[in-house]
C-alpha cells in the first residue's frame, strides 16, 4: 500500500490561515489503512483545527468527508456537490489522490494534509516499512525477492558495496544490508548464479511521468503507453 504520514499541524494550519470554510477530505484506502488519512484522522484533525482557530479568535467552519478512493473518478464524483460550498479543500489522500482532486476542481485551492512517503508493508499496528520504489522494471526474480532499488541505500544492482558491515548497511547498524540478505537467500536457494553475472546498466523508466494502459484497453483515444 501507499504509506503517508500526517503533515505537522502548524504547516496545515498555516495553509488554511486565509480560509473560513474548509472541507477536509479523507481517503478510505491506503492512507486509511496506514492510519494517516481515513475517516478517523479527518475527524481528529478537524477537531484540532477547530480548537486552534478558536484560540486564535479566527473560527473556521470545517466539513468532513471520506470517500473510498480519491484516485478514482467514480468515487470523487461524490464530492462534486459539496466542494462548491467551501473556500478550500484539505485532502488527506496520497499525493496522487490530492492531485486528482485538485484537477477536478481547478478553481478551488487544494492543500495536502499528509506527506506521502512510500510503497510499503505493515509490520505491526502503526508500523510500516518501505519496500518498493516502483522502478517499472522489477528485478525481484533475480534478487531473491529483496528489492535492491529500495532496500540498498545506494540502489546498487551489483552489490554489496565495500561498506557492508556484518550484515548491516554502512549507513547504520540498524539497517540490514540488502545485498547481504540477497546473497544469503540466493545462496540457500542455490541460485547464486543470478548475481555472479554482471547486471547491466539500467534503462531508467521513472524519469518522466508514466502511463499504463493494460492490454485490451488500448483505444485510438488513449495515447500509446509511455
Amino acid at each position, binding site marked *: 500500500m501507499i504509506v503517508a504520514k500526517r503533515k505537522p499541524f502548524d504547516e496545515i494550519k498555516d495553509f488554511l490561515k486565509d480560509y473560513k470554510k474548509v472541507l477536509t477530505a479523507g481517503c478510505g484506502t491506503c492512507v486509511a489503512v496506514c492510519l494517516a488519512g481515513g475517516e478517523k484522522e479527518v475527524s481528529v484533525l478537524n477537531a484540532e483545527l477547530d480548537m486552534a482557530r478558536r484560540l486564535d479568535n479566527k473560527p473556521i467552519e470545517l466539513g468532513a468527508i471520506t470517500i473510498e478512493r480519491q484516485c478514482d473518478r467514480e468515487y470523487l464524483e461524490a464530492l462534486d456537490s459539496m466542494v462548491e460550498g467551501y473556500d478550500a479543500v484539505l485532502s488527506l489522500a496520497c499525493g496522487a489522490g490530492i492531485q486528482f482532486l485538485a484537477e477536478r476542481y481547478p478553481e478551488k485551492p487544494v492543500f495536502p494534509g499528509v506527506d506521502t512517503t512510500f510503497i510499503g508493508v505493515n509490520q505491526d499496528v502503526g508500523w510500516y516499512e518501505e519496500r518498493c520504489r516502483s522502478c517499472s522494471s522489477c528485478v525481484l526474480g533475480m534478487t531473491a525477492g529483496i528489492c535492491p532499488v529500495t532496500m540498498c541505500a545506494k540502489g546498487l544492482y551489483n552489490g*554489496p558495496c565495500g*561498506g557492508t558491515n556484518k550484515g548491516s548497511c554502512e549507513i547504520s547498524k540498524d539497517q540490514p544490508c540488502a545485498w547481504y540478505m540477497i546473497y544469503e537467500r540466493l545462496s540457500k536457494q542455490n541460485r547464486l548464479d543470478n548475481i555472479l553475472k554482471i547486471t547491466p546498466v539500467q534503462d531508467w523508466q521513472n524519469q518522466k511521468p508514466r502511463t499504463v494502459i493494460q492490454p485490451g484497453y488500448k483505444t485510438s483515444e488513449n495515447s500509446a503507453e509511455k
Partner: protein
Amino acid sequence: MKSESNLEKVLSAGHFAFTGELGPPRGTNAEEVRKKAAFLKGNVDAVNITDNQTAVVRMSSWAASLILIQEGLEPNFQMVCRDRNRLAMQSDILGASAHGIKNMLCLSGDHQSFGDHPMAKSVFDIDSIQLIGMVKQMRDEGTFLSGNKLDEPPKMFIGAAANPFAEPYEWRALRLAKKIAAGADFVQTQCIYNMDRFREFMKRAVDMGLTEKCYILAGVTPLKSVGMAKYMAGSVPGMDVPDELIERVKGAGKGKAAEEGIKIAVEQIQEFKEMEGVAGVHLMAIEWEHRVPEIAKMAGVLPRPVV
C-alpha cells in the same frame, strides 16, 4: 599497453608497485596539494586522488589530479558513482584523459549521510561495476555507453576497489571476479589489518586464477594512535582490526604509538612483497603524507623503478 600509464608500465614490467594517496583540500588551496605531493614524489608510482571522500565536499578529484601532473607525479583519478550520472561521468573521463590522466579508480562512494551534506540527493545512476565496464567500453570499443562512436578513446588503466573483509567472506573473491570480468586492470584493497583473513582471500584469488588477469595491490594504512585503531575497528564500516593489533599499538607506550604503527605497516609491506599474487602495495597514509618517504625507505621499496 592499454594506457601507457607509469603504473601500468611498472606492473607489466613485473615490478612490485607502490602507490600513494592524497586527499584534495576543502577549498581552492592548490599549494596544499603541491605540498602533500612533494612528499610523495619519487616515492610512489602513482597517487590516488580521492573523490569527495566520505561524502565531504573537496576540490574535484580531476582538478587535483591535474595539479599533480603539473608537479610531475602520476595521478590515479578516483571517481565515485554517488555524485555523477552517466553523462557527467563520461564527459569527466574524456576531459581527464585529454589532460593526461591515465589511471582511474572506479568506486561506489560512501553514502552521503556520512558527509557534510547528509540530505543531498545521491545519483547512483550506475554502480561501480557498471562504471568499470563503461570505462572499458569507451577505451576498447571507442564508444559511449549509448553505443555511439567517440572521437579518440580515453586510454585509461582501470582500477577497482576490493574489500576482502566484509561478510559474507565467500562472496569477496566472487565479487572481485565480477569486477575483473567487467574490465578492472588493477585492484586496490581496503586497508588490511587482519593478515590471516587477507592471506585466505589471496589464496582464493590465486586459486581462481584472478591474479593472472588483474594486478592486486594490497591496501595499507599505518595506525597513528590507539584512538585511530579503535576508531577504525569500531566506526569504519567494512574494516577489520584484530584486537591483538590494537593491543600492540597500545603496548608501545606513551608517544610511541605512531612509531609502532609505522613498524606494523612496514612489516606488512615486507610480507606482501613475498605473498603470492600480490602485485604491489597501496599506501593510504591519510593526512600523513610526510611520513611516506620514511615508510617507503624502511619497507625497502625505494628507489621506484623508472620504466
